[in-house]
């Protein structure tokens, strides 16, 4: 009898914990979507903010986030893939590769606000790019680099050596083997990792705080050397910095919904690629 009670208690402990973790997600999504989805209208998506940002839409913030993510991609993906190719395809285990791998692991653990400081010192001040979407995109690129390298390397590791041997034995150089066989085969895996990393980058706020994000921009800026609005910062601003916080709460909920939907969209694309690729094997 006593044993039975203990066992029951243990069940509650484990299953209960799992239920609580699931509830966290449920509460987050329910609260934000139940109050935010009704704010999402075509006007909200496509209009500029108006009346001191108490009315209107979030179009500049959406454009800003897309432009920002685009710059991050252009910078971090080639760089990260090249580094992963070096580590997995060219390099033999050595002191140097151990140091590179240790650097990558530690870079992944650095708080994002410190990347913000580094972006400020390097891009804004030293490279004189100013506070701009370019500086912010490059900063987010640095932040994304370790994740892109790690996920790409994992994708490359899954390619069996027999694929590489096939072309090498025909007298292809290592680069030709990488370009013609390894990368095309690893592409779905690389893509999945890249998209998940970018979805994280798109939701980041701390690294862009000092490198170019703006409270409000008059009109719509798509120039890469200008400040920009971004969805996460817009949400932060609407919920803490605005002079009439209660009045703009529906806008804040709407912005949060759009941000989460955007991030989930990225994730769904990534899962789709992973799923489709798995079912092909």
């Amino acid at each position, binding site marked *: 009898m006593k044993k039975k009670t203990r066992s029951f208690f243990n069940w509650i402990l484990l299953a209960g914990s799992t239920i609580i973790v699931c509830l966290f997600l449920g509460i987050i999504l329910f609260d934000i979507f139940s109050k935010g989805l009704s704010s999402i209208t075509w006007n909200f998506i496509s209009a500029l903010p108006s009346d001191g940002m108490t009315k209107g839409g979030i179009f500049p913030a959406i454009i800003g986030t897309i432009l920002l993510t685009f710059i991050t991609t252009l910078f971090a993906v080639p760089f990260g893939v090249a580094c992963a190719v070096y580590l997995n395809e060219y390099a*033999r285990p050595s002191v140097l590769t151990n140091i590179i791998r240790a650097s990558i692991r530690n870079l992944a653990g650095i708080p994002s606000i410190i990347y913000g400081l580094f972006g400020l010192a390097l891009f804004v001040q030293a490279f004189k790019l100013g506070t701009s979407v370019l500086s912010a995109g490059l900063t987010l690129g640095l932040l994304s680099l370790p994740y892109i390298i790690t996920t790409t390397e994992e994708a490359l590791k899954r390619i069996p050596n027999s*694929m590489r*041997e*096939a*072309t090498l*034995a*025909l007298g*292809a150089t290592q680069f030709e083997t990488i370009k013609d066989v390894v990368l095309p*085969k690893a592409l779905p895996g690389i893509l999945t990792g890249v998209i998940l990393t970018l979805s994280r980058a798109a939701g980041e706020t701390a690294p862009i705080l000092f490198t170019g994000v703006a409270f409000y921009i008059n009109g719509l800026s798509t120039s890469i050397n200008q400040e920009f609005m971004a969805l996460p910062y817009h949400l932060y601003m609407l919920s803490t910095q605005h002079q009439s916080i209660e009045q703009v709460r529906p806008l804040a909920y709407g912005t949060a919904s759009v941000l989460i939907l955007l991030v989930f969209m990225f994730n769904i694309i990534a899962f789709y690629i992973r799923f489709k690729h798995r079912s092909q094997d």
Partner: protein
Amino acid sequence: MDEIKLSAHALNLYFGNKKILKNINIDFPKNQVTSLIGPSGCGKSTLLRSFNRMHDLSPDARIEGTLKLDELDIYDQKNSVTEIRKRIGMVFQKPNPLPKTIYENLSYALNIHKFPKNEIPQLVESALKESYLWEEVKDELKKPAVKLSGGQQQRLCIARTVVLRPEVILMDEPCSALDPISSHKIEELIMILKKNYTIVIVTHNMQQAQRISDKVGFMYLGELVEFDTADNIFKNPANELTKNYVGGHFG
């Protein structure tokens, strides 16, 4: 005396601290089929793969000794590994077609080695004919190569090697993953190919070695125990170990 095409002299090979090949001396005669036989783990595949420098991929492999293609030193850093692999083709244990179409599997090597564009279709066709695959695939050259059956894939891999007109073809248990009918086709193919190519084949199958080989090397625990004509190895082996192995007493 046979003309020597490929040779190893005083070859030692290590993986890390483990010595896998011990003082191997072997000469492969031109335009003949030489089989390497021996129990699993005896180093026959390792020996085969050292001739086209496939061990370059393994970070902990270390090689001592001299390997030669004609008079060319295979491991001399001055010589191009790309060039050597173009001259020494290889067919692997498991068919490994490129993730491309049937046609591209053959044209790939021709393209990277910059063969004239207008000659490529002709070269692809003749290599497929030479590998007795043409009739089966001529209407579906644009199909992904992985859609072929295992036996067809392996013949495609042979065609892919033959298309470059190498001087030597190394075959690492090419039939072990195939059914008997496919194996038989490949054996026939090997007999025809040896007119033009020097073939070294690693096999587990005694009957196969007996059917196709001119010469046979028996390896045991990283050493070349006996190297002689196929007739002598199978009918009149000099070494007790060889006798037991070909007699089916172990391995």
